[in-house]
């Protein structure tokens, strides 16, 4: 008898000590696997939620599950989250996002670290995602790259691009590049290189036809970058790259992002949804470029000078 009363008292005590918060929001995050970039993205999401006044344990409940590399588990986590009816689900990576989107048509979904959300069929279009889904793509910020090229080489009108048509990711990127360059009054000139040995020839074919060269995230071209840089220096054609690592190897400049920042950007969208906006009304955004790398020596060799305004913003200046 005493025992039962004690248990009852303990239960009441627990119930009273748990603060009842009317406005507690639940955000369920899932990733396909533990991975430094994906973990950083998750931490970034939580950073942004905290910055917006949502404190885990107070007015925010974070649920996190990793599928440990197994898509069947990812599907099961998706069902688990949908059943728990959180306020927002944040799937990190393409398979996790697909599993979540397949499992719900009404719970808001904000995906992240998905390179091509349209061909992954998460949304019908980047501008008007519709339904319950929006998110952030981790494709390189191509539009910002074009703007950067124009800032450094204001006279550039024709942008040459060397890429391997056999790499789906580069093809997708070149398509985005055409759109973004068009918006800013530039035309794109293609030069295909099917293998590393063709990269230099492809670059030479651009001499006289382009005012600058852009290197997308293309494994074939990036692996043979030095040949392309030699053409740039001989023909005084400034070479820009989509990735910041290539700036260290000798391209003029690039703008990159890190995954913690990508997560923060995603978290900002999650906050908008928590505040009542419809996910489907928020356009899918590309990752914001935050890390500006410049290489003044390479710029000089290719006949351009980096304006002071750009040099001041640089987060890393190669050669210093």
């Amino acid at each position: 008898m005493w025992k039962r009363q004690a248990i009852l008292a303990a239960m009441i005590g627990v119930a009273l000590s748990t603060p009842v918060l009317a406005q507690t929001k639940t955000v369920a995050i899932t990733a396909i696997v533990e991975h430094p970039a994906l973990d950083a993205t998750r931490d970034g999401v939580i950073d942004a939620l905290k910055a917006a006044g949502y404190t885990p344990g107070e007015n925010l409940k974070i649920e996190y599950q990793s599928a440990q590399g197994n898509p069947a588990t990812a599907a099961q986590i998706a069902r688990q989250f949908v059943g728990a009816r959180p306020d927002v689900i944040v799937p990190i990576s393409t398979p996790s996002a697909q599993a979540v989107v397949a499992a719900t048509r009404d719970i808001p979904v904000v995906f992240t670290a998905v390179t091509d959300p349209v061909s992954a069929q998460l949304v019908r279009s980047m501008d008007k995602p519709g339904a319950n889904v929006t998110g952030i793509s981790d494709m390189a910020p191509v539009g910002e790259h074009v703007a950067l090229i124009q800032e450094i080489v204001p006279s550039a009108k024709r942008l040459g691009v060397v890429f391997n048509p056999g790499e789906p990711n580069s093809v997708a990127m070149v398509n985005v590049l055409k759109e973004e360059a068009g918006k800013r009054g530039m035309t794109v000139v293609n030069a295909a290189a099917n293998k590393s040995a063709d990269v230099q020839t492809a670059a030479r074919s651009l001499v006289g036809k382009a005012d600058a060269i852009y290197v997308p995230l293309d494994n074939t071209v990036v692996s043979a970058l030095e040949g392309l840089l030699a053409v740039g220096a001989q023909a005084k054609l400034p070479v820009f790259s989509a990735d910041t690592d290539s700036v260290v190897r000798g391209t003029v400049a690039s703008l990159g992002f890190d995954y913690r920042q990508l997560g923060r950007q995603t978290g900002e969208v999650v906050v908008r949804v928590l505040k009542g906006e419809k996910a489907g009304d928020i356009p899918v955004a590309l990752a914001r470029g935050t890390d500006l790398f410049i290489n003044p020596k390479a710029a000089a060799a290719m006949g351009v000078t980096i304006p002071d305004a750009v040099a001041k913003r640089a987060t890393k200046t190669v050669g210093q």
Partner: protein
Amino acid sequence: MSDVAFFGAVEIGLVYALVALGVYLSFRVLDFPDLTVDGSFPLGAAVAATWIVSGGNPWLGSLAAMLAGAGAGLVTALLNVRFRILHLLASILTMIALFSINLRVMGRPNVAILMQDTVLTPFYGLGLPDHIVRPLAVGVVALVAVALLAWFLTSEFGLAMRATGVNARMARAQGVETDGHVYFGIALSNALVALAGALFAQTNGFADVTTGIGTIVVGLAAVIVGETLVPLRGLAGALLGCVIGSILYRLAVQLALSADVVGLEAADLNLVTAVLVAVALILPRSRLRVAKVAK
């Protein structure tokens, strides 16, 4: 555990029940440890998804997936029977080759069919919620597979196949053409696994090259959990045991996913799943031993 999570676990369990049936056929009936399934599961998903994305009929796509899976099984059987490569190695060779083939089939690492019609589309409009429709539809497929397999394995041809697995030399002495039965059995096993892959792609909206990782582990676990925990006798009982074992395995994963309440972290998922399955397998035996000691 919410309704959606429970029926989700049952649904994925039923999809993997087809894998368990395939594994039962190779490991138990033919005594042929076949690891091809880690490749034929995503092969089925890849073929069905690519078929559907190019505008093909999803039923035909699922059939094409089964044929592709059977083809993969035939390659393994050929390497083993014709070229005398150890069965384990033969199946590993096919499995690793299938990774490249799956990439070729899809042309990229991931094909989405979230917006296309699948074999499940006609059933979504019948008024039941999606999370009930999916396990029902997949359950019907699994039960049909059990019925057909039970019928097949008790037919004269099926009995000869079982004899091949039990004692190939004795079967040959009785005039059974054992090589043919190995070809047919491994092809059928992988066709079932590929069908599971095709259904997985259609219930989850995508095919991904990584979907195959650990398929054999899940299939084998389902077979053994079924054999240990399901008290049904006979061949049909064993086949039903595969289905129930597969669902129980998924419920164990589901429990592990809900285990964060007791202070476990997301990283502990696989460990918790393994412990739960191990406990499920050990408990009935230890109770038996206690009973024996008490006597």
